[in-house]
C-alpha cells in the first residue's frame, strides 16, 4: 500500500504545488504589507490568508475525491486496477495520501498563523490589546493555556474525522455510480445525487445523536460532548470504505 501512496502523491503533486504557491504568494503579500507598515494591505492579505485556510481544506478534499473519480472513469484507472492489490488497499492509499496532504497544509498554515500573529503584534503594537482582551475572556470562562490547546486539538481531530467522513462518503457515491449503477446514463450526475442524499441522511442522523452536555461550561465538557459525533463519523467512514471496497471487488467495470 505504501507504494500506492507514493504514486498517489506523485499524481497530485502539481495541484499541491499550485496550492502551496498560492499560499506562499499570499504570505509574501502579507509580509511585504506588514513590513512596509501598510495597514490596508496587511488587512487584505491577512483576510486572504484566512480565506486560503478554508480554501486549502476544501481543495485537499476535492483533490482526494477527484483522484478517485478519475481512477474509475478514465483509462489511467487500468494502471491501478491491473496491479495485484486489493480494492481496500487502493481506497486506503488514496485516503492516506489525502491525509498526508491535509496534514502538510495544516502544519504549514498553523506555522504561518503563529509567525504572522507574532509579526502583526510587533508591527502594530495596539493589536496586543485585542489579544489581551481575548486572553481575559478565556480566563473568565475558566480556560487556561493548556485548556485552550486541548480545545484546539479536539477541534482539529473533529475536523479530520468529519473530513474523512465526507471524502469516504464521496468515494461511496462514486463507487456506486461506477458499479451498481454502471449501466445507467449520466453516471456523473448520479454520483453527485447519491453523495447529496448520503450527506443529508448522515446529517439528519447526526442531529439526533445524544447530547452529553447541552451547554458545556468547560473545555473538558466541550470535548466530551464531541465524542458521540466523533464515534458516529468514524463509523460512517469505516462503513463507506467497507461498502466501496466490497463493491469494487465484486462489480468493478473499467
Amino acid at each position, binding site marked *: 500500500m505504501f*507504494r500506492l501512496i507514493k504514486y498517489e502523491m506523485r499524481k497530485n503533486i502539481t495541484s499541491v504545488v499550485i496550492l502551496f504557491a498560492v499560499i506562499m504568494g499570499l504570505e509574501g503579500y502579507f509580509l511585504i504589507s506588514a513590513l512596509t507598515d501598510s495597514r490596508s494591505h496587511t488587512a487584505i492579505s491577512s483576510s486572504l490568508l484566512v480565506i486560503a485556510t478554508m480554501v486549502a481544506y476544501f481543495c485537499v478534499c476535492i483533490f482526494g475525491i477527484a483522484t478517485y473519480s478519475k481512477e474509475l472513469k478514465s483509462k489511467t484507472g487500468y*494502471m491501478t486496477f*491491473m496491479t*495485484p492489490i486489493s480494492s481496500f488497499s487502493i481506497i486506503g492509499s488514496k485516503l492516506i495520501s489525502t491525509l498526508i496532504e491535509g496534514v502538510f497544509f495544516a502544519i504549514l498554515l498553523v506555522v504561518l498563523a503563529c509567525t504572522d500573529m507574532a509579526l502583526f503584534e510587533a508591527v502594530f503594537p495596539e493589536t496586543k490589546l485585542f489579544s489581551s482582551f481575548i486572553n481575559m475572556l478565556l480566563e473568565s470562562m475558566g480556560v487556561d493555556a493548556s485548556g485552550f490547546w486541548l480545545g484546539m486539538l479536539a477541534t482539529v481531530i473533529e475536523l479530520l474525522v468529519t473530513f474523512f467522513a465526507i471524502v469516504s462518503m464521496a468515494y461511496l457515491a462514486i463507487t456506486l455510480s461506477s458499479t451498481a449503477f454502471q*449501466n445507467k446514463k449520466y453516471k456523473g450526475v448520479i454520483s453527485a445525487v447519491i453523495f447529496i442524499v448520503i450527506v443529508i441522511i448522515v446529517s439528519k442522523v447526526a442531529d439526533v445523536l445524544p447530547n452529553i452536555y447541552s451547554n458545556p461550561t468547560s473545555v473538558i465538557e466541550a470535548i466530551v460532548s464531541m465524542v458521540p459525533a466523533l464515534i458516529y463519523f468514524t463509523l460512517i467512514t469505516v462503513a463507506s470504505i467497507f461498502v466501496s471496497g466490497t463493491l469494487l471487488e465484486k462489480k468493478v467495470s473499467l
Partner: protein
Amino acid sequence: MLKCENLVKKYMNTTAVADISTNIEPGKIYALLGPNGSGKTTFMKIVAGLIKPTAGNITFEDKPVGIYSKAHIAYMPTENFFYSYMTCKDAGHYYRDFFNDFDEEKYHQLLKEMDLDLNQKISKMSSGMVAKAKLAITLARNSRIIMLDEPLNGIDIIAREKVINTVIANATQDNAIIMSSHLVDELEKVIDYAIFIRKGEVVMQGEAEELRTSRGMSIVDMYKQIYAHD
C-alpha cells in the same frame, strides 16, 4: 491454465459478451479474432480483472480472477493508460514496484529495439510510439499469460513485422500469448490457436493448423467467410 465457462457481460441494453467458453494453455499463441464491437476487448478486460462478468465462471490456475491472477497475467489495453506525468522510465519504475515478474533490463532492451527514449514523456509521444511503449512494458513482464489488445493499432506497416517478431521472441513453453486484431493476415503466420468471436459469442475455435486442414482455407479466408455479412 485459464478456464472460461459461459462468460456473459451485459451493459444496459447491450450484450458485450454473450457466451464465451474457452481454455488457454501455456506454450501457444492465441488469436482473438472478430470485427470491432465483437467482444474481444471486453473478454480481455474480464481476464485482466478490470471487469466483472455478469454471469459465467473464470478461473486462472483454479483460482477466481483477482489479486493472484493479476500478478501473473499481463494485459496491454488498446488505449494509452499511462498517467499523464509518466516518462518511459517512470512507467518502468511503476511496473517494477508492483509486478514481481517485471524485468527492468528486458524493458530497457525492448525500448531500445523500439527506438524509444527512456526519458521521453509518454503523453507527448505519437500514437505509434505509445503503442510501442505499451508493448515494451507489457512484454517486459515474464507473465504466465500475456494479452495484447490490438497490438498492431497505430503501428506503421514497416514496424509491424518488428512488433510481430518481438511478440514471437517472447513466447515460451511456459506462457500463453493472446492477441486480438482485425489485421488477421498479419497474425495468420504466427498463431497456434484461433478464436473467432461474433456478437459476443465464440463461433469457431481450434488449433490454427487443424482449422486450415479441416476447412481447406486460410485463417484469413475463414475470417472473411464468418464476418462477410456483418
